[in-house]
C-alpha cells in the first residue's frame, strides 16, 4: 500500500512540475525575452486557460501527501517553514499578476503586474530546484547536536542559509552551493520548457528567436547537469546504488538523456510540439531518477542518530490507505474525463481563442 501511494504521489508531483513548469517558464520568457506587447499577449494567451488547473495538481498532491504520508507532510512542511510560506506568497503574486493585468488598461498598471508575474515565476522555478536539492541532500532530522536530539526524531527546522553556504556543514541551511546549483538547473530547465510550450501553442513572431534561446540554454543545461552529477557524489555516497540493484531503473536516466539531447534539435523539428515533448521527458526522467536514487527514503537524515524518513515510517495506517484506493480510482476516472474534455475544447494553437478579456 505504501508503495502504491508513493507512486501515485510521485506521479502527481511529476505531472505538476511538467504542467505548472511550463507556465513558470512562460513567465520567465515573458520577463526576459518578450519586449513587444503582441508577444506578451501571445504568452499570456498560451497559458491563460491552463495555469489555474495546473496549480490544482500541487494542491491535490499536497492533499495526497497529507493523507498517505502524514508524518512526512508534518515534518517537511514545518521544517521547510520559511521557504514554503514564501512559495505561497510568490504563487499569490504570480496569480494576481496574471489575473489583474488585463483588468485596467493603463501602461503603468500593466507593467507592474507583468513584472510581478515574471519575477515570481523566475523565483518559483529557482525555489523548486532548491527544494529538490534539499531533499537530495537531506536534513538534520531531530536537530541533533553533539549526538543528542533536540526534538522528536522526525522533526527539524532549517533557516534560509547558514554563514558558510556549505551542504556538508553541521548547521544546514535551505540555500547552499549545492541547492542553489539545483535551483539554477531548475530555472534553466523550466525556461526551456516554457519556451517550448509557447512555440507549441502560438504562432507568435517570438518563436524563431525562442528556438535559438532554447539551443543556447541547452548548452548551459548540459553543463549544469554534468556539474551537479559530479557534486552529487560529494553530497550523497553511492547515488546510483539503487540502479545497480534494479537495472530496469536505468530507463529513467535514459529518458532524461533522450530529452536533454533531443532539445538540441529544436530548430529542425517539423512539428512544434516536439521540443515540448523533449523538455517534458527531461523533467519527468530527471524527477524519477532523483526519486529512484534515494528510494525508499523520502527525506534522508544527515546525522547518524535518527533514521532517514522512508515511505514505510511516515505512512498512514493500512485501513486508511486501502479505503483511499476506492475513492482515488473514482476520482482518477473523472479526472481523465475532464482532461479529455478540456483538451478537446482547447486543442491547437491559442491565437484564435482570446483570453483575459473578461
Amino acid at each position, binding site marked *: 500500500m505504501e508503495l502504491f501511494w508513493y507512486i501515485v504521489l510521485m506521479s502527481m508531483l511529476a505531472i505538476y512540475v511538467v504542467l505548472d513548469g511550463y507556465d513558470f517558464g512562460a513567465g520567465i520568457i515573458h520577463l526576459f525575452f518578450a519586449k513587444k506587447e503582441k508577444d506578451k499577449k501571445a504568452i499570456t494567451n498560451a497559458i491563460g486557460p491552463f495555469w489555474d488547473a495546473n496549480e490544482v495538481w500541487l494542491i491535490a498532491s499536497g492533499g495526497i501527501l497529507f493523507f498517505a504520508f502524514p508524518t512526512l507532510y508534518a515534518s517537511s512542511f*514545518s521544517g521547510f517553514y520559511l521557504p514554503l510560506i514564501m512559495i505561497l506568497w510568490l504563487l499569490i503574486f504570480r496569480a494576481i499578476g496574471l489575473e489583474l493585468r488585463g483588468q485596467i488598461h493603463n501602461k503603468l498598471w500593466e507593467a507592474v503586474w507583468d513584472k510581478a508575474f515574471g519575477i515570481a515565476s523566475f523565483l518559483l522555478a529557482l525555489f523548486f530546484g532548491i527544494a529538490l536539492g534539499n531533499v537530495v541532500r537531506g536534513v538534520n532530522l531531530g536537530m541533533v547536536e553533539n549526538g543528542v536530539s533536540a526534538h522528536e526524531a522526525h522533526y527539524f527546522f532549517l533557516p534560509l542559509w547558514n554563514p558558510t553556504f556549505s551542504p556538508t556543514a553541521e548547521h544546514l541551511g535551505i540555500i547552499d552551493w549545492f541547492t542553489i546549483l539545483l535551483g539554477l538547473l531548475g530555472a534553466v530547465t523550466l525556461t526551456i520548457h516554457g519556451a517550448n510550450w509557447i512555440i507549441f501553442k502560438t504562432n507568435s513572431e517570438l518563436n524563431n528567436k525562442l528556438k535559438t534561446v532554447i539551443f543556447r540554454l541547452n548548452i548551459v543545461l548540459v553543463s549544469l547537469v554534468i556539474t551537479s552529477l559530479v557534486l552529487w557524489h560529494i553530497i550523497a555516497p553511492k547515488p546510483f546504488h539503487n540502479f545497480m540493484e534494479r537495472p530496469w531503473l536505468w530507463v529513467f536516466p535514459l529518458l532524461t538523456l533522450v530529452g536533454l539531447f533531443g532539445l538540441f534539435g529544436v530548430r529542425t523539428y517539423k512539428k512544434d510540439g516536439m521540443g515540448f515533448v523533449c523538455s517534458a521527458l527531461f523533467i519527468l526522467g530527471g524527477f524519477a531518477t532523483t526519486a529512484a536514487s534515494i528510494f525508499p527514503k523520502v527525506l534522508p537524515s544527515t546525522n547518524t542518530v535518527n533514521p532517514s524518513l522512508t515511505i514505510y515510517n511516515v505512512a498512514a495506517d493500512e485501513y*486508511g490507505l486501502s479505503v483511499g484506493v476506492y475513492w482515488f480510482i473514482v476520482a482518477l476516472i473523472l479526472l481523465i474525463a475532464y482532461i479529455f474534455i478540456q483538451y478537446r475544447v482547447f486543442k491547437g494553437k491559442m491565437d484564435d481563442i482570446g483570453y483575459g478579456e473578461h
Partner: protein
Amino acid sequence: MLNKPVFLDIFFSLLFKFELLNNLMPFSMEDMLFYDRMQFAFTITFHYLFPQLTMGLSLIIVYFKWKFLRTQLQSYNDAAKFWMRIFALNFAMGVVTGIPMEFQFGTNWAKFSELTGGIIGQTLAMEGMFSFFLESSFLGLFLFGEKLLGHKLHFLTGFLVFLGSWASGFLIIATHSWMQHPVGYEILSNGKFVLNNFGALFSNPWLLPSYLHNQLASMVTASFVIAAVGAFYILNKKHHSFGKLFVKTGVLFGLISSVLVAFPTGDWAAKNVVEYQPVTFAAMEGLFETQHGGAEIVLIGQPNVMEKKLDNKLAVPNILSFLTYKKWDATVKGLNEFNPEVYPTNIPGLYYAYHIMVGLGTLFIGIMAMAGVQLWRKKLYSSKWILWSLLFLLPFPYIANTTGWYTAELGRQPWLVYNLLRTSDGISPTVSSGNTLFTLLGFIGLYLLLGMLFLILVGKIINKGPLTSNT
C-alpha cells in the same frame, strides 16, 4: 478572539511600546501557540470572505442561466454574465487565499497533522481530487466558453462549477465535523489517530446540520450581495431593469435562505452543541450558573468572567429552555457544572460571536420579510427605505458568516479534536514564534494589498454594470 491581547493590540504594541515583544520568553510554547493561532485565524477569516459568496452565487448564476434557457429572455443571460465576472474575481481570490490554508496544517500545525493526518487527510485529499479538479476544469470553460459551447453546454459547465464548489464545502465541513465530534477512529499507543470506519466520517451527526447551515448562510451572503447591487442601481437610476431583476432575485433567495439558515438548520446545529459540547453551549449563551425550572435567553449583556456573571443583562425568561428542550421549565446546565479545565478559552469572545450571529440572522429575516411583502404588493422598487436598507446591509452577512464560524471554532477550544487533542499539543514543535510572527506580518501586508485591489476591481465591475447584448 483569543485570551491574549486581540489582533489590533499586536499592531499597537509593535507601533508604540514593543511591550508585547519584550515580554516574550524565547521559545515559550505559549507564544508559539498564540502566533500560530493568530496566523490561522487571520488567514482563514480573510479566505472565507470569498467562498461564502462564490458558493451561493454559483447557484444563483445557474438559476439565471436556467431562466434564460426556459424563457429565452436575453436579460437573464446578461445577468448571468455580469455575475460571472464578479464570481470569477471572487473565485480567484478564494483560490489564492485557499492554498495557504492547506499548507498551514503542515507548516504551523505539524503535530496535529502527524497525529490525525490518517483521518482528516482522507477528506482533505478527497477535496483536492474531487472538487478542485472539477472546478478548475470547468471554470475556464464556463468563463470563456459560452460561444464555443452553446447555451445548453454552457449551463452544464456552470452547474458543474456549482457542484464542485458545494462538494468542496461538504468535504471541508466533514473535516471540521470530525474535529468537533470525532467518529470512526481509534487511538494507537503512540497517540496517533487511525481511521477504522470510513463511512462514519460521512454519517457523523455533526456533519449534515453544519453543512446545510453553512451553505444556507452562503446563500444569505450571495442574496444580500445581489439585492444590494440591485438596490444600488435603482437608487442610482442606472441599469434600472437589471436593478429590479437583482433586487427581486436577491429578495426571493434571501427570504428563503434567511429563514432556513435559522430554522431548522441553525436549530439543528445548536442541538448538536447542546448534546456533544454542553460546556460550549453554556458559554455561548452566557450561562454561568445552571438555571433550574426554566432558563432565560440573554439578548444583551457583557460576560464578566472574573465575577462569573453578565453585566447589563437583558433577558427573556424560559425561552432558552423552550428552544433547547421544547419544554418551558427544562433545566439548562451552566458553566458551574463543568471543570474549568475544559472551559472554552475565550468565553466573552465566544458569547459575542454567537450573539452577533444570532442577532444579525434575526435582522436578516425581518428585513427580507418586509422586502418580500413589498414585492408581493408590487411596491418594492419604489420603497426607498427598503432599498437603502438592502444597500447598507451588504457587509452584515459577511459579519454573520464570520462570527458563526468563530462560534464553532472558539466553541471547540481548548481542543483541536474535541475532548481528545488539545490545541496546544498540535502546533509545529520546531517553528519558533519569531518565524511565525514574520510570516503573519507578511500575510497581513499581502492580504491588505489583495483586499484593496479586490475592492477597486469589484467596484469597477459594479459601476460599469451589466452589458446588454444585441443577439
